[in-house]
C-alpha cells in the first residue's frame, strides 16, 4: 500500500478512536440519567435525583472532551481527505454541518438547565430537560452515523457535471437503510458502555464501603440497563447490521469471518486467519451457524472471499477479522456478566457477592474496547473503498499533503491527547472521590470552567 494513504488513514483512525471514547460515554449515560431521574420523580426519592445529578456531571465532563476532540475530526475531512471532500462534500457535508450546528447548542443548553435550573423549574419541567439532553446527544450521534452510513452504502446522490457528487434527496440521505441498523447497533453499544461505567463505579463504592447507598443504586440501575442493552446489541441490532453486510458488503462479511470458499459456512469462534493459504489456523467453529445467521437456512451457501476479485478484498483481512471477533467475544461476555449479576440481584445477594462486584468493577474498560473494535470492523470492512463501490480510499486523500507532514501532525496529536487523557482522568477521579453525597459542595466550584453555565447557583 502506498505509504502516504496509509499514514493519512492512521491519522484519522487515531484521532477518531480517541474522540469516540468521550461521546460513547455521554450517549451511553444519557438514557441512564433519564432513568435515574424518572425513578426519582416517580418514587419521590431524593437519593435517585442526587444520583442523576452526579452522573449528569460526569456526562458534562465527558461532553466537553467530546467537543474538544471533535473539532479535529471535522477539520480532517478537509485537511487529510480533501479529494474525498471535494468529491462527496455536497452530500455528506449536509449531515456533518447539521451536527455542528445543532448538537452542541441543544445539548449544552439543556445540560445547563438540568444541572443548575433545578430550583427554578418544576419537577416535571426538570425531568423534561433531562429528556432533552438525552435527545440532543442521541441526535448528534445520528448525524454522524448517517454520515458514515452513506460511505458504507451511498444513496440519494447523482454525479454532477464536474464529476463530483450532489445530493438528490435529503430524506433519502437521512433515512439510509444502512444508517437505521447501524445507528441502533451503535447506540446500544454506547449504552453498554454507560451501563458498565455506572455499575462499575457502584461496585467500587460497595467494595471500598464508601457511599454505599449510592453504590447500590448505581449497581442496580447499571445491571438492569446492562442486561437490556447487552441483549439489544446482539439482537436485533447486531443481527440487522450483519444482514446489511450480507446484502451490501458481502466481501466484508466474508473477510470478517475469514470465509474463503463459497459454501455452507461455519461460525468461527476462535482461530487465526491464514490469508496466504486461505484457511484458518487452530479453528474452533460452530458448524453451519453463519449460513443460518445470514440466510436463516443451515445449508445455504455463503459467498466466500474467492468469489470476489482480490482488488475488492478488504486491505487488512487479519485486523478486520480480529476486530470483529473481539467485538463479538466481548459482547457475549457482557451479556453473560450482566445476566449473572441480574440473577444475583433477583436473589437480593448481589451487593454481598464480592467476587462478582470485582468482576463488574474491572469490566469498566471492556465496553470501550468492544465499541472501538466494532468501529474498526465497520471501517476496515469498507476498504478498499472510501465510499463503498464508488470511490477507492487511494483516490480520496489529500495528495498535496506529504506523508512526512502527516507524520508530524500525528505525533503532535499523540502528545496532545496524552495530556488530554490525563486531564480527563484527573477530573473524573475528582468527582468519584468527592462522591455523590457532597455534590452541593462540588456545585460551588464549577465541574469544568468551560461547562455551560457551570458553577452557577440559583
Amino acid at each position, binding site marked *: 500500500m502506498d505509504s502516504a494513504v496509509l499514514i493519512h488513514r492512521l491519522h484519522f483512525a487515531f484521532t477518531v478512536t480517541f474522540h469516540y471514547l468521550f461521546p460513547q460515554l455521554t450517549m451511553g449515560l444519557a438514557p441512564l440519567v433519564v432513568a435515574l431521574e424518572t425513578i426519582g420523580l416517580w418514587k419521590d426519592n431524593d437519593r435517585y435525583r442526587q444520583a442523576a445529578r452526579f452522573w449528569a456531571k460526569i456526562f458534562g465532563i465527558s461532553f466537553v472532551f467530546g467537543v474538544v476532540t471533535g473539532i479535529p475530526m471535522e*477539520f480532517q475531512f478537509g485537511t487529510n481527505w480533501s479529494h474525498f471532500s471535494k468529491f462527496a462534500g455536497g452530500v455528506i457535508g449536509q449531515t456533518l454541518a447539521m451536527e455542528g450546528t445543532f448538537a452542541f447548542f441543544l445539548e*449544552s443548553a439543556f445540560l445547563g438547565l438540568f444541572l443548575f435550573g433545578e430550583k427554578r423549574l418544576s419537577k416535571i419541567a426538570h425531568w423534561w430537560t433531562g429528556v432533552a439532553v438525552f435527545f440532543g446527544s442521541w441526535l448528534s450521534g445520528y448525524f454522524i452515523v448517517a454520515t458514515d452510513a452513506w460511505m458504507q452504502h451511498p444513496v440519494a446522490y447523482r454525479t454532477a457535471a464536474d464529476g463530483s457528487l450532489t445530493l438528490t434527496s435529503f430524506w433519502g440521505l437521512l433515512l439510509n437503510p444502512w444508517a437505521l441498523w447501524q445507528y441502533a447497533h451503535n447506540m446500544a453499544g454506547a449504552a453498554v458502555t454507560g451501563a458498565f461505567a455506572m455499575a462499575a463505579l457502584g461496585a467500587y463504592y460497595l467494595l471500598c464501603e464508601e457511599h454505599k447507598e449510592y453504590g447500590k443504586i448505581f449497581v442496580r440501575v447499571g445491571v438492569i440497563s446492562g442486561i437490556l442493552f447487552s441483549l439489544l446489541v446482539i439482537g436485533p441490532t447486531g443481527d440487522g447490521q450483519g444482514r446489511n453486510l450480507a446484502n451490501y458488503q458481502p466481501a466484508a462479511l466474508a473477510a470478517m469471518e475469514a470465509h474463503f470458499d463459497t459454501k455452507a459456512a461455519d461460525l468461527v469462534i476462535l482461530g487465526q486467519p491464514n490469508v496466504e493459504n486461505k484457511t484458518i489456523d487452530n479453528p474452533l467453529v460452530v458448524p453451519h451457524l453463519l449460513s443460518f445467521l445470514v440466510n436463516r437456512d443451515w445449508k445455504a451457501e455463503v459467498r466466500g472471499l474467492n468469489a470476489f476479485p482480490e482488488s475488492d478484498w478488504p486491505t487488512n483481512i487479519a485486523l478486520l477479522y480480529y476486530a470483529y471477533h473481539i467485538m463479538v467475544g466481548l459482547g457475549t461476555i457482557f451479556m453473560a456478566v450482566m445476566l449473572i449479576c441480574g440473577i444475583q440481584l433477583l436473589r437480593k445477594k448481589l451487593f454481598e457477592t464480592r467476587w462478582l462486584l470485582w468482576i463488574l468493577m474491572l469490566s469498566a474498560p471492556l465496553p470501550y474496547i468492544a465499541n472501538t473494535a466494532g468501529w474498526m470492523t465497520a471501517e476496515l470492512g469498507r476498504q478498499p473503498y472510501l465510499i463503498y463501490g464508488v470511490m477507492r480510499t487511494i483516490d480520496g486523500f489529500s495528495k498535496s499533503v506529504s506523508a512526512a507532514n502527516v507524520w508530524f501532525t500525528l505525533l503532535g496529536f499523540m502528545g496532545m491527547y496524552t495530556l488530554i487523557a490525563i486531564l480527563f482522568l484527573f477530573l473524573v477521579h475528582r468527582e468519584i472521590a468527592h462522591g455523590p453525597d457532597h455534590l452541593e459542595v462540588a*456545585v460551588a466550584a464549577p465541574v469544568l470552567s468551560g461547562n455551560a453555565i457551570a*458553577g452557577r447557583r440559583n
Partner: protein
Amino acid sequence: MGFLWFAIISVMLTGYVILDGFDIGVGALHLFLGRTDDERRKMIRSIGPVWDGNEVWLLATGGVLYFVFPQLYASSFSGFYLPLMMVLWLLMLRAIGLEFRTHIDHGIWASFFDGIFSIGSLLLAVFYGAALGNVVRGLPLGPDHYFFLPLWTNWNVGSHPGVLDWYTVLSGVVALVALCMHGANYLVVKTDGELNERARKTSLVLTPILLVLTLISLFATLSIHPNLLANYKALPIGFAIPVLVFASLVGVWVFQKSRQEVLAFVSGALYLAFMLVGAVYSLYPVILPALDPQYNLTIENSITSSYALQVGLRWWIVGIVIALGYFVFLYRMFRGKVTLEDGGYGD
C-alpha cells in the same frame, strides 16, 4: 442562493471572531494584566462559562462551509494543513491550561498553566491574523485547485509564498493587538476594582497603537494588491467601510475615556466586524484568491447543487434559532461583574 450562503458564512465567521476573539484576547493578556492569583482567577472566571460555546461557532461555520463550498473546504484545509493543525493544538492547549488552572490551586502549577493558557491564546491570535493575511494576499492555487503552503519560505510576498511572510506576520500582529484590545474591553465590562482600571488603561493604550497598525496594514495591502480596490471603485459605497473601521476604533477610545464600558466593548466588536467586512467586500465574488487570478475559487465554481442549498437553508434556520436562544440564555445567566465567592458569577 450563492450570495445568500456567502453572506451567511461571512456572518457566522464574524460572529466567531467577535465571540471567541474576546476570550482569546483575555487569554493573551492573562499573564500581563493579572498580577495576583485572585486577579488571574477572576480573569478566567470572566470567560469560564462561555469560551467553549464561543468556540463551537468555529465548528458550525466549518460545517456549513463544507457542505456549501466543498471545493473551497478541500482546497483551503489541505493547503493550510500545517497552520490549521497548529491552530487545533493551540485551541486544545488553551483548554488544558484553563481547566487545570481552575482545578489545581497550587502555586507553581497554577503559574505553569497560566503560562500555557496565555501563550496558547497569544499564538492563536497571531495565527488567525496570519491566516486572514494569507487569504487576502492570495495563494499558489494550481489548475487542479489545490496548493500546499510551507510555514515559511523567504518571508517575501512572491510567487513562492509561505504561511508566514512579512505581510502575513503584519496581519498577525494586527490581529493580536486587536484581540487584546477586544479582550481588555471585555474585562472592563466583567470586572471591577483595580483589574477593571488596569484593563481600561490597557485598552486606552492599545487603541491608538491599533489605529496606526491598521493604517499600515491598509497601505501594505494596497501595495501588494493594487487591484484590490476594484469592487470599491465599482460600488463606491464600500468606501464607507474603512471610515467605519476607524470611527469604531476612535469610539473605543472615547467610550473608555468616558467610562461607558458596554459601548466601548460594542465599538471594539464593530471594529472587528468592519475589518472583516472590508476584506470580504474587496474579495467578492472570489472566495479563495489565487496568485494567478485564472485559478481563483469563486462562489460560482465552488458551490454545491441548488437542491442541497435549499434543504440546507431550512434546517440551518432551525439550528441558528436554537443556537441564538442558547446564547441569549447563557449570557443572561452570566450577566454582571464576576466575583470569586460562591463559584457564582455575581449578581
